[in-house]
Each structure stands twice: as C-alpha cells, then as structure tokens.
C-alpha cells in the first residue's frame, strides 16, 4: 500500500461526509457545512494527486479549485442567512415554495 493511501482514504471520507451533509440533512447550515467540507476534501485530494505527478500543473488546478470553492462558500453564507431570515427557519423541508 502506498504512503498516500491513508490520506486519500481520509480525503474521500471527508468528501462523502460533505455530500451526506448536503443531501441528507435538509438544513441550511448543514448544507453550507457540506459544501465547505466537500471543497476542502476536493482541494486536499487534488493536492495529493499533484504530489504524484511531475510538471506541477495540478498545483495550479488545486489553487484554482480552492479559490473557486472559497468564493462559493463566501457566497453561500449571505444567501443562506438571507433565506433563514426570510423564512424564519433553518429547516429546508419547510422552505419548499418551489416545486423542483
């Protein structure tokens, strides 16, 4: 087993936990937390992948991903806060004005 197996497994677990929080927990704050967890996990996994490849292009890719997901998290916070203020609840099951 290579040295990267444990960190890669941890990264994948973190990513799955983020997806679970986003899809299963049906709450504004947990969805936001899920996005942040997934973002960190993805950046971490991209970093791990870049360590095993020459050329360093993935370094640029990892930074692009980190910056983009940080911006998304920054956008998610005020949007989630606005939603919570408007509807007066954190429960996404109660915020179902739209039909999907």
């Amino acid at each position, binding site marked *: 087993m290579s040295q990267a197996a444990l960190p890669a497994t941890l990264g994948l677990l973190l990513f799955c936990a983020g997806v679970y929080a986003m899809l299963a927990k049906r709450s504004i704050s947990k*969805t936001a937390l899920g996005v942040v967890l*997934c973002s960190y996990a993805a950046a971490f996994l991209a970093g791990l992948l*870049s360590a095993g490849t020459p050329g360093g292009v993935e370094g640029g890719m990892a930074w692009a991903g980190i910056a*983009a997901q940080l911006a998304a998290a920054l*956008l998610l916070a005020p949007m989630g806060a606005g939603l919570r203020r408007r509807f007066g609840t954190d429960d996404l099951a109660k915020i179902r004005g739209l039909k999907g």
Partner: protein
Amino acid sequence: MSGGGGMNILPLLLAAPFAGACVCAVSGKRFAALVRTAASLAVFWLSLRAAARVCLGGAFAWEAAGLAVDGLSALLLVTVGLIGFAVSLYTHGYLAPSAREGGFSALFLLMTGGMVGTVCAADLVSLVAFLEIASLASYALVAHGGGKDALEAGFKYLAIGCLASLFAFLGAAVLRSATGAASLADAASALAAPGATPALRLAAGLLIAGFGTKAALAPFHAWLPDAHTSAPAPVSAMLSGVLVKALGVYALLRLFLAAPGPGVAGVLATLAAVSIIGGALLAAAQHDYKRLLAWSSVSQVGYIVAGAATGTSLGMAGALLHLCAHSAAKSALFLSAGAVDRAAGTRDLRRLGGLRERMPVTASSSLAASLSLAGVPPLGGFWSKLLILLGCVEAGLGGLACAAALGSLLTLGAVMKAQRAIFYGELRPHWDAVREAPPSMRAPMVALAVLSAAAGLLLLPGPPRALLAGARDALRGTRQAARFAAGDAAEARAKNGVRLR
C-alpha cells in the same frame, strides 16, 4: 502569444467583460447600464472578429493564458456575444434603474467573461477556473431579485452547482494524474482510448456528472427548473440560451462527444433520450410559462447531446445547428415571458389569455421562436432536428431517433398550449390596461426570434456556413487525433503487452 499574424484579440475579448464588470461594480446605476451594454457590444464585435479570423486563417491561441480559439470555440463565442448583447439591451427596459443596477451589471459581465474564457479554454486548468467564475456569477444573479423564491432557487442552484463543480474538478485532477493530459485535446484522446483503467473510468464518471449537471442533462437537471423560473427574465434568457451550453454542453462536446469512447457514447445517448422525453413531458404539464420553458430546455439540451453522441457528421452538424437555433429561440421566449410578466404581473397560463391584441410584437416573436423550437418546417429548429434524426438513423440508433421525433411532437404541444393560453382567445377585461413592451425590449426579442427562425440559413453556402463547418471540423479533428492516439496505444499494447495507463 501565437496564431496567424496580426494582433491577438483574445486578451481584448477577456478584458472587455472583466474590466466592464469592475467599472460597473463601482459606478452609478445609469452609468452601469451603459457600461454593461458597451462591454457586451464589444464582446459581440470581438467574437465576430475572432470567428472571421478562424474562418479565414484557422485556429489561433494565447498560449500564456492557456486559451485558444478554433471553429467550435468561435461558434460558441459568437453565440455568447450575440445573446449577451441582445439580453443586455433588453435589460434597459426590463429593469427599472435602481441602486442594485451596478451589482447586476457587474455580475452579468462577470458571467459573460467566464463563459468567454470557458469556451476559449485550451487546457483543464483554464476550463475549471473560467467555469467557476461564470458559475459563481450565475448563482448570485439567480438570487439577485432577493425575493423568497429567488433566494430559495439561488441557494439550491449554488449547492448543486458547487457539487457539480467539485465533481468536474476532481475528474479533471484524476484524469491529469492518470494520463498526464493537460490540454483538452489530450484529455479527449485519453478518454476515448480503448482499454480504460479504473482511474480513467472514475475520471470519466466524475466529469460526466459534473458537466452533465452544468448542462442540466437528466438526471442531473434538478437545479434548472427552479433557477430559470425564479431568476429575472434576462438572467433566465442567459442561463437557458448560453450558460448551460457554454459550461456544460461545450465541455461534454470537447471531452467526450468529439471522440466518443466505446461506453461513453451509449451512456450519453441514453441520458439524452431520457432528457428529451422527460423534459418535454414535464414541460407540457406546467402552468407557469417560465417553468414550461425551463423544462423544455432540459429536453432541448438532450437533442444537442443526442446529435453529437451519434458520432456521425450529420448528427454532429445537427447538434451544432441546434445549439445555435435553440440559443436564439429560448432566449427570445424567456424575454417574451419577461415582457408578459412585466405587463400583466403573472405568468400563470390559467389566468392569461388574448394578450395578442395588446402585445402584437411580443406575441409574433414568441410564436416564431416557439415554432422554431418545436421544429416546424421550414424554421431553424426543423433543420437541426432533421439532421439529428438522420444522424441517429445513420448510426443505427433507432430508439434515440424515435425519442427525438416524439420529443418534438411533445414540445410542439407544450409551446402551442402556452401560445394559446397567453396570446390567443378572448381578451379578459382585467387585461385591458396591458401595454406592449417598450422598444428596447421589443427589438432584442424580435431579432432573436428572427435569428432562431432563420437558423437553417447556416446550412447554405456562405460565411455563416463556414462558421458551422469550422466547428464541425474542429470536432472532427479531435476525433481523428483520438483515433491516432488509440491506434498508438493499441500498437504499444501489442508490442509490450501492457494496457494504456
């Protein structure tokens, strides 16, 4: 910088929207609207120049930034430039000047710049970076109205969009790590090669999920109906007209559909068939005009992917023509929905009726775009759908051809239901006060409806056909390169008894 002599216009193409966005962010409301329109016009003009340069002298690149323009990029650039400029003009009449105009204009130009960068991206890093810029701006634009529905749709779109971006990002990272491919052409070749390793299969799955979500291909479409319905009409027109194509369909075309691998083409053809039928059925069941159009977008994206997934020249040409015809038609329809909503204060088909008397220009442009969308001869959508059908038959995909034909009939039923409910029948007394949209809103609607109806002219000899042929040739070139790469890989395996990494 390189490419065929003369000044490289790629830096200008990117500078126009991004500099415009910076100016809009700090300027007053009226000045911001002017800057937005001027920057959109500049993008349109520069995209036409880029397309002319590609048609006359071939592809060119800005290597330092990882950007390049070939026939496919040029077609998408002109589409983004044209729709962006038309929508920007329409917004003058649609949005009353307010303190939020600067923010709206800045986000609009950021989204345009992101799309320009995405369709010019030559490598995976540029693709991921520009795709995120356009996506982030679009999330904020959907929620820009600030109402309950807008916030809910924006939040949902942001959460699903982030997940899609992460899938695409991880897929790109795995692909780069497994194959060493940095450019999109190399990545397409690696994905098309037979004998894929588990890492390549994982990368392909992640990329299809990520870009399929951006393209709103079923079953990754959950964000689209709410986002398109709740966004302001100009934003809906941009999302449906160009964003799903520039971010999702374009990436799928570049990475998978130019040179479909053995299993991938079947997967994408299945997803396309589900999108065509499911989207059209759900569109026909809607009572909200914008929601009906949103579901129809899911169906029409399915046509583009179906045409490309056939792998035939006819199907590919049909997919590219449908990309143009649908962009113009759907933008015109969302703009007309905005005009109706603004005039009557509702989009509910059960409450509207007879508005043709009060809004003849909006009604006529909406009818022309609807008929083109449904594929009624001799309008633009007819020719694109005919080519896609012929491509399906040529490729032996009878089921997909049946789905495409049935989807077209369902779309005709859905759009005619909307036309009848909104514009025809007796005018109800409470709509007596309804007035036609102002000229700044009418002109873009009419122009886009005429373009969608006349999209079939792209098949006639002349400069427009060169644009379409250039895009098809770019895809064909990628396919040939992939075949060479696959041949090399097979040769290497035969010699060494090893599988392609």
